């Protein structure tokens, strides 16, 4: 798909409608509410895990819908994956030092 040059804008004519954007926003607000509510419960070690999971879900929504990633060429999703994987590797390998002290 990237072999020929796109004339004009290469713009995708589909994408979300106003309503769909608002729906996603409401979802994000709901997830925020859930995170705050959960913080009031004593989940111990699991609090950080649930908080990060919820944050990741919110991020996925923002990436795919607000940032249009779902509708872009597959190459963009591969790029995002590579970038996130790189950061994850930095985290994990650093913790191979700290977690085993």
């Amino acid at each position, binding site marked *: 798909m*990237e*072999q*020929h*040059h796109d004339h004009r804008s290469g713009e995708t004519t589909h994408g979300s409608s106003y309503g769909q954007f608002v729906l996603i926003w409401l979802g994000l607000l709901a997830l925020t509410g859930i995170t705050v509510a959960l913080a009031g419960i004593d989940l111990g070690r699991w609090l950080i895990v649930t908080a990060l999971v919820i944050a990741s879900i919110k991020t996925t929504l923002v990436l795919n819908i607000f940032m249009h990633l779902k509708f872009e060429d597959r*190459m963009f999703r591969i790029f995002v994956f*590579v*970038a996130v994987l*790189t950061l994850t*590797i*930095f985290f994990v*390998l*650093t913790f*191979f*030092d*700290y*977690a*085993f*002290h």
Partner: protein
Amino acid sequence: MGNPASLAAPDFYHVKTKHGGILGWILSTDHKRIGILYFVSMMVFFSIAVVIGFLMRLEMLSPGRTIVEPQTYNTFFTLHGIMMIFLFIIPGLPAVFGNFMLPLMIGAKDVFFPRLNLLSWWLFVTGGILALVSLFLPGGAADTGWTFYVPYSIRTSTNVIPAMVAAFILGFSSILTGLNFITTIHRMRAPGMDWFKMPLFVWALYSTAWVQVLATPIIGITLLLVVVERVFGVGIFDPTLGGDPVLYQHLFWIYSHPAVYIMILPGLGVVSEIIPVFARRTIFGYKFIAYSSVAIALFGSLVWAHHMFTVGMSNTGMFIFSLLTFLVSIPSAIKIFNWVATLYKGSIELEAPLLFILSFIIQFSIGGFTGLMLGVLAINIHVQDTYFVVGHFHYVMFGGTGFALFGAMHYWFPKMFGRMYAKKPAVISWLLVTIGFNVLYMPFLVMGYMGMPRRYYDYLPEFQVYHVISTVGSWILIAGLLIMFVNLLVALRRGSPAPANPWGGETLEWTVASPPPLENFHTIPAITTGPYDYSKYEKIPAEVM
């Protein structure tokens, strides 16, 4: 030969630019002019760093004070490192030859973001000037070593902040270049040039560009945090405030290890360009070399803590990083096998470009092998922070990338400047530089193994013989460098005009005039074959190979 119409258009030096004179250069968005701007400014910084190296070697001729005080020596090795690394070797090949050659090699008329390209150069010059200015500000030049380890970099009263800000700006320049190249390679290849018809230098630039984009921000934030800590006293790495200096080292090397792959990958790409031309053979194992560039970029991001084996990490961490370090040598070795296989039974033309590349192969192998040794935990304990390490990285960065740069200079000089240089002085310079380099750095490996610590101003008498040999080597090396650059400078004025394709290369840059016209190609070519099609030269039947 060149397209007749493109030969009629004036070369890019002689077009009418919006501004005249020097402004026509420093405000130009033409990738070819930007490549040359980088080359000139880089050579200034390189020369200063060489002089500092020369002075360092003079100081080390004898134990104790020889020509300077200890504090001065500390600033010398700090500045030599900062300049060579951030102002020469990291930008090096991509900024000069990547900028000049990438659009030509893929059949494009420029990079995707020409104005961003100019900004990259401006950032480069700004960072360089700031680094030099830091020498003269009150407080004196930074004396932390180019690695800026905490807590000393938080405590020292020298100009660490300007040096770090300079490095930050230079990192930004590097990021923008990488971003530009990735976009260019994805979007501007000539019709018909699929990924596996690209020249291997382009594969190298592509892999390097990803490392530039993804790894450089880490050094950005790390330096920023130290600056914030120095200025505001925020507790981040300072152990008296609970900070962890080893964490600084992790973050520093998360960038600075991949940085060495930013340095070497383009050099490996240059080797893959030069060997087919001067062996009149298509490259052996094109796909292996292409994939190995990607593999080096990937694996190279996983090994950083092998710079930290002696600081007290967990055993598990050390085992894993040691194992990963072994793995990263494999793709590099694959390249060496493929190059040697290309040379074998080729029709070798021993011109200057190939000579530098042959030195590269041997020196890079020595450097790579000593790197493997350093990856072995049991060896590392003894040689960490000795001259063995200094020898290793000079073999790969200088004996490797540096020589690849010299090879690239001699290979692409006719294309960039439209002149041929005199061949005999070029060969003589090659000989002196190779001999000088090895006489300078081989003793480092020996005395490092025997225990000579790095960054030390003084030393025990048993090491003196090695230091003397090294310093003499530095004089031979510098003589060779002088002959090399004078030869090329003279050629700018008095060299015979170069044809479009003096070496018989098969990549696209050789199809346009020397020097190229402003927009490179009169019409964008349509690509049907791969980049190293020497089949017309091959007389050896297939089964013999």
